[in-house]
């Protein structure tokens, strides 16, 4: 055990952050009574978890995927099809979907990892679209309705719950597991390797890092957890269709949340989800009726402004303000010292 722990760079404050997250994930669902807020909480937990999963490949490793909806959709479809047609519990279906997503990720890794930057983003975007189109086309050969409903029949084994707070606990647990995983990765040599690849592929390879292998590791882990999020989404909404779970909007939302909070950091995607989802909801409440569609315009403008003002996300903004204060007080103490 201590040998295992030796692979990580622990800091004293880590336990504190973990306690905060744990408290938030398990206490909040009990305190919040209002159905509307609980719904927001479930979505925040779920999207924060998926954005954190995206962040492993997109932020830590710097491979800006725009195709993650493929994994969300594969997760949602695998568990739902297995449950509806074969009667397999979504708890198992979720793992099956995760593994299938990893397989897909491994298959496309070879062509897409040959590309860098924008080309990688475009290739993954095309991949996400392709999976949806293939699914729609497959209905010509397989007898499958356009949308799939999951029977509302509450039960733990069926992963269907009566009250939303149970869903909040479920998605909260998902967020915690993804966060612990991402955190462990980032504090081990693997996280260091991923950042090295992001910063300079040439120098990373010259330092003895087998680049493809580590990009692949990050991609597989990311795909697996994103896919789990897809199953949870399906179990919460109890209805899926190609355009809802295979949607470019999801592919864009996940990186957007990471960018908002602080891309490549552990807390960033969580903070991003905490801001983005309620913001969109509030705007919808305010303008939804008087001027339909306006809320999306304002949402878009707000995001653009935030990204321009804070290029490294909210965390980066806080950090640079703190650094400014620290260097100012340093300068002051240096000026005062010679007396």
């Amino acid at each position, binding site marked *: 055990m201590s040998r295992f722990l030796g692979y990580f760079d622990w800091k004293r404050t880590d336990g504190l952050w973990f306690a905060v997250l744990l408290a938030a994930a398990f206490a909040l669902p009990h305190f919040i009574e209002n159905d509307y807020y609980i719904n927001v909480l479930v979505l925040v937990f779920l999207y924060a978890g998926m954005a954190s999963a995206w962040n492993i490949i997109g932020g830590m490793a710097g491979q800006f995927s725009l195709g993650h909806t493929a994994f969300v959709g594969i997760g949602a479809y695998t568990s739902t099809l297995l449950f509806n047609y074969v009667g397999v519990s979504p708890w198992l279906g979720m793992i099956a979907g995760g593994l299938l997503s990893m397989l897909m990720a491994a298959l496309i890794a070879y062509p897409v990892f040959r590309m860098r930057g924008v080309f990688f983003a475009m290739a993954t975007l095309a991949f996400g679209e392709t999976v949806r189109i293939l699914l729609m086309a497959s209905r010509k050969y397989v007898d499958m309705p356009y949308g799939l409903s999951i029977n509302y029949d509450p039960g733990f084994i069926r992963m269907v719950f009566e009250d939303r707070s149970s869903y909040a606990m479920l998605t909260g647990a998902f967020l915690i597991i993804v966060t612990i995983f991402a955190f462990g990765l980032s504090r081990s*040599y693997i996280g260091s390797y991923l950042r090295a690849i992001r910063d300079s592929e040439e120098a990373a390879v010259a330092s003895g890092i087998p680049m493809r292998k580590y990009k692949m590791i990050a991609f597989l882990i990311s795909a697996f957890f994103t896919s789990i999020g897809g199953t949870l989404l399906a179990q919460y909404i109890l209805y899926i269709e190609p355009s809802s779970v295979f949607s470019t909007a999801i592919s864009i939302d996940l990186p957007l949340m990471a960018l908002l909070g602080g891309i490549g950091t552990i807390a960033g995607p969580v903070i991003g989800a905490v801001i983005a989802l309620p913001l969109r909801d509030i705007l919808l409440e305010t303008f939804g009726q008087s001027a339909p569609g306006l809320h999306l315009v304002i949402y878009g403008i707000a995001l653009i402004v935030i990204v321009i003002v804070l290029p490294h996300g909210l965390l980066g903004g806080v950090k640079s303000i703190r650094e400014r204060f620290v260097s100012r007080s340093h300068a002051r103490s240096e000026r005062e010292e010679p007396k």
Partner: protein
Amino acid sequence: MMLEVTSLTMRFGGLVAVNDVNMSVSRGEILGLIGPNGAGKTTLFNVIAGVFPPSAGTVSFNGNRIEGKSPDVTCNLGLARTFQIPQVFTSMTVLESISVGAFLRHRNFAAARAKATEVAERIGLGSRLEVPTSSLTTAERKRLEVARALTTEPQMILLDEVMAGLNHTEVNQMLELVSLLRDDGMTVLFVEHNLHAVMKICDRIVVLDHGVKIADGLPKEVMEDAGVVTAYLGAAVSSDQENADA
């Protein structure tokens, strides 16, 4: 022989950057590789390190054929290199970037940090461990390159113009560093435009011109070679004069 290069040719389209070069470096030797701009020195490094597979010819390291193997594989075999234009990990501190090299042999975090700190102190970056790499000076970036390469614990290191852009004091510090490496028994292949440095430290010198090896021998012999004088020293002397005039 530690490194053996035979009939190595590297073409980029119609351009022959390295033309049928034979060269060897024995264990513990410090070999200087010189030549005018565009002579093919960096390209030769890139082929040896595995960035490009050669168009023709072979490279052996410790008796194993390595041409066409990727840079991470050659690094793992004990052949490390620096970049002429420092490639820094911009989001990291000095200690973090040096640790990246150390993880190759030490997956345990504390062990890797200890190795990185030890190398940083030897390289003269000991007081800069927590500084972000983006705020380093040119001289420090060059040293960071060397440190990152050294933490992979190589048997041989390829240094590409680690003294370019440094002032007189910094050049002397870098020279001291290379002699320290020699004392450790490290084999060094280094490209340098600073001829004083080359003359001072190298056991042997190879001269490239337009991709062709035109001389190979003791520093003194090479400097007196008529071909070298016209191809390279002529250019260097005139550029020295330009520098003096400036």
